[in-house]
C-alpha cells in the first residue's frame, strides 16, 4: 500500500517550471531515493509535499487523505517529517530543548500541561543517545558542529514519531565516517517502521541505502526502478551529462 501518493504535481516560479507533472508513489516501509541534477526540482517537491509552498496543480495524498492546502505544522502533525538541505536547528536553544520543540498534534491542552515533560525528556535523551550525540544535550544548537547539527535535526524530527520522513541531502557536507553512521541510523529507523524519501547527490550513499530510485530532470520524472537498473539507464546518464 502507498503511504504517500503524489499525483501530477506542478509548480512554476515565474518563467521557471520547477516541478512539471510529477507523480510519485512511496510504499510504506521503503527507502526511496529522489535523485537528479542540480536545479531539477527535488527540494521544491519537498517544499510542496510539506506545505511550505502552494502547488499550481496536482494532488498529494498521505494515507489516502489529501494533504494539499494544509500548512507545514499540520502536515508534520499528520506524520510527515522533513529535514532541510542545510541542516536547520534552533541556535539559541540547547540540543535537548531542540528535541522538545516538535509538537505532535496541536492541541492547546497538551501544550500547557507540564505533566508529560518528564516522559518527553526521557524520550529525547534516548533519541540523542541513539544518534550518538547524548553528550551535547546541554550545549546550545549554535555551538554544535555541522555534523552534530545534521544528527540533531534528524533526531528532533523523529520526536513526534513521523511515519514518513523526507531527507534533503542528508550526506551533504558531511565527512565519510559520519556518512556511514547517518546511513546506519536511517536503516535502523527504517527497520523500526519509518518510511524515507531521500534526496541525495552522493551516488554511493544512495545506491547502498535506497530500495528504489526516482530520477528527476527539469521537474519531470524521467526514470525509476532498482538502483542498479537506474544507474545503467542511458536516459539517466544523458540527463546528468546534459545538465
Amino acid at each position, binding site marked *: 500500500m502507498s503511504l504517500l501518493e503524489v499525483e501530477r504535481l506542478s509548480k512554476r516560479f515565474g518563467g521557471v517550471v520547477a516541478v512539471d507533472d510529477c507523480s510519485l508513489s512511496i510504499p510504506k516501509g521503503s527507502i526511496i531515493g529522489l535523485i537528479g541534477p542540480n536545479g531539477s526540482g527535488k*527540494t*521544491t517537491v519537498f*517544499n510542496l509535499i*510539506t506545505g*511550505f*509552498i502552494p502547488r499550481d496543480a496536482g494532488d498529494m495524498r498521505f494515507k489516502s487523505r489529501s494533504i494539499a492546502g494544509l*500548512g*507545514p*505544522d499540520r502536515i*508534520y*502533525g499528520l506524520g510527515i*517529517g*522533513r529535514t*532541510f*538541505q*542545510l541542516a*536547520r*536547528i*534552533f*541556535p*539559541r*536553544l*540547547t540540543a535537548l*530543548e531542540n528535541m*522538545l*520543540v*516538535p*509538537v*505532535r*498534534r*496541536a492541541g492547546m491542552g*497538551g*501544550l*500547557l500541561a*507540564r505533566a508529560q*515533560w518528564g516522559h518527553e525528556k526521557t524520550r529525547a535523551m534516548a533519541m540523542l543517545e541513539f544518534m550518538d550525540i547524548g553528550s551535547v544535550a*546541554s*550545549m*546550545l*544548537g*549554535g*555551538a554544535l558542529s555541522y555534523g552534530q547539527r545534521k544528527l540533531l535535526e534528524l533526531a*528532533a*524530527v523523529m*520526536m*513526534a514519531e513521523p511515519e514518513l520522513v523526507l531527507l*534533503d541531502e542528508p550526506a551533504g557536507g558531511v565527512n565519510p565516517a559520519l556518512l556511514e553512521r547517518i546511513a546506519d541510523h536511517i536503516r535502523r529507523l527504517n527497520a523500526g517502521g519509518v518510511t524515507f524519501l531521500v534526496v541525495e547527490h552522493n551516488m554511493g550513499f544512495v545506491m547502498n541505502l535506497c530500495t528504489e530510485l526516482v530520477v528527476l530532470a527539469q521537474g519531470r520524472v524521467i526514470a525509476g526502478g532498482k538502483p542498479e537498473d537506474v544507474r545503467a539507464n542511458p536516459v539517466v546518464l544523458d540527463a546528468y551529462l546534459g545538465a
Partner: protein
Amino acid sequence: MNAARRFAPRVALLLVAIVAILLPVLEPNPASINVAVFTMMYVGLASAWNIMGGYTGYISLGHAGFFGLGAYTLGLGVAHLGIGPGYGPFALVPLAGLLTGLFALPIGWIALRTRAATFVIVTIAVMFMLQLAAMNLIGLTGGTGGLSLPVPRWSGDFYNTPFYYAMLILASLTIAVSWWIRRSKFGLGLLAIRDDEDKAMAVGVPTRQFKLAAFVISAALVGMIGGVYAYYVTYVYPEFVIDPLTGISMVLMAFLGGLGTLTGPVLGALLVEPAQLSLAYNFGASRLYLVFYSGVFLVVILLLPRGIVPSVRDLTIGWWTRGGPGRAAGPSPGPSTPAPGNVVAP
C-alpha cells in the same frame, strides 16, 4: 557548590519579595512610594512586553496602545457603572485586561501576518490609530479633554500605598505568567519561532496560533497595568495614556536587562525607571530624559548587545566551571547558522 547554585536564586527571590512587600513600611515617604509605583508599573510592563518581544522576537513598539486601552476601560467603566472613589475601581482591572486582550486579538491577527520590520511598523501604526480614535470619539472618550476619575479620599501619607500594592500584584502576576510560559512547551515553541520560524513550522509548531496567543497575553497584562495607572493619575488624556514613549520605555528596559530572559526586564525597569524619574524631578518637565534614554540605548547596543542578565550569567557560569565548556561557551547566536530568513529553499 551545586546546592548553593540551586538555592541562591530562591533565597534571592525571597529577599526581593520581602523587601517589595515591606517597602511602604520601610520607606513611608509618599514621594518614595510614588517612585516605587512607577517602577513597579514598568517592571510589569517590561515583563509583559517581553512575553511577545523577547520570547518570539516580534518587536512591538505600539504596546502603549494597549496601555491606553486599559486606561480607558477603567475610566469609562468607573464613569458608566457609577463606581465611587475607594477600592471599588480596582475591581475593574481584570475587565481592563479582558477587553484589551479581546481588542488585541484582531489587531494581532492582522499584524502577525507580517514579519520583522513590517511588524514593527504595523504596531506603531495601530498605536497612532488608537490615539486618533481616542481623540476623535468625543462622545465616548471625551476627546482631547480627557476623562477624569474619582479621587480617593485617602490621607496624603497613605494615598500612594494601595496603588503600589496594585502595581506589585500585577507585576508579580506578569512575572509568574512569564515564568510559567518560559517553562512550558508553548514557551519553547515561542523561542523556536524567535530562532527560525519556518523551521518551527516544519516541526509542527502552530506558529500563527502561538504568536497570537503570546500577543494577546502580553497585551492583556499591559492593559491591566494601564487600568491601575489611570486610577492613580485620575485623568485619562489620549496623549498621556497612549504615549509612544511608554512603549519605547518597555522595550528599552527589556533590552537593557536581557531580551527573552525572565529577570532581564525586571532588572531593566528597576535600573531605568528610578533614574528617569529622578531626572524628571531634578530638571523639571524638560525632556532631558530623552537624552538619557538615547544614551542607555547606545550603551546597550554597543557594550551589552544581549543585555545585562545573559552577559552576567555567562561570566558567572564561566567562573563556576572555570572556563569549561557549557552553555556559556557557545558563540553568540546568529552568524553560525545558515541564513534563516524567510526563504524556504534550500
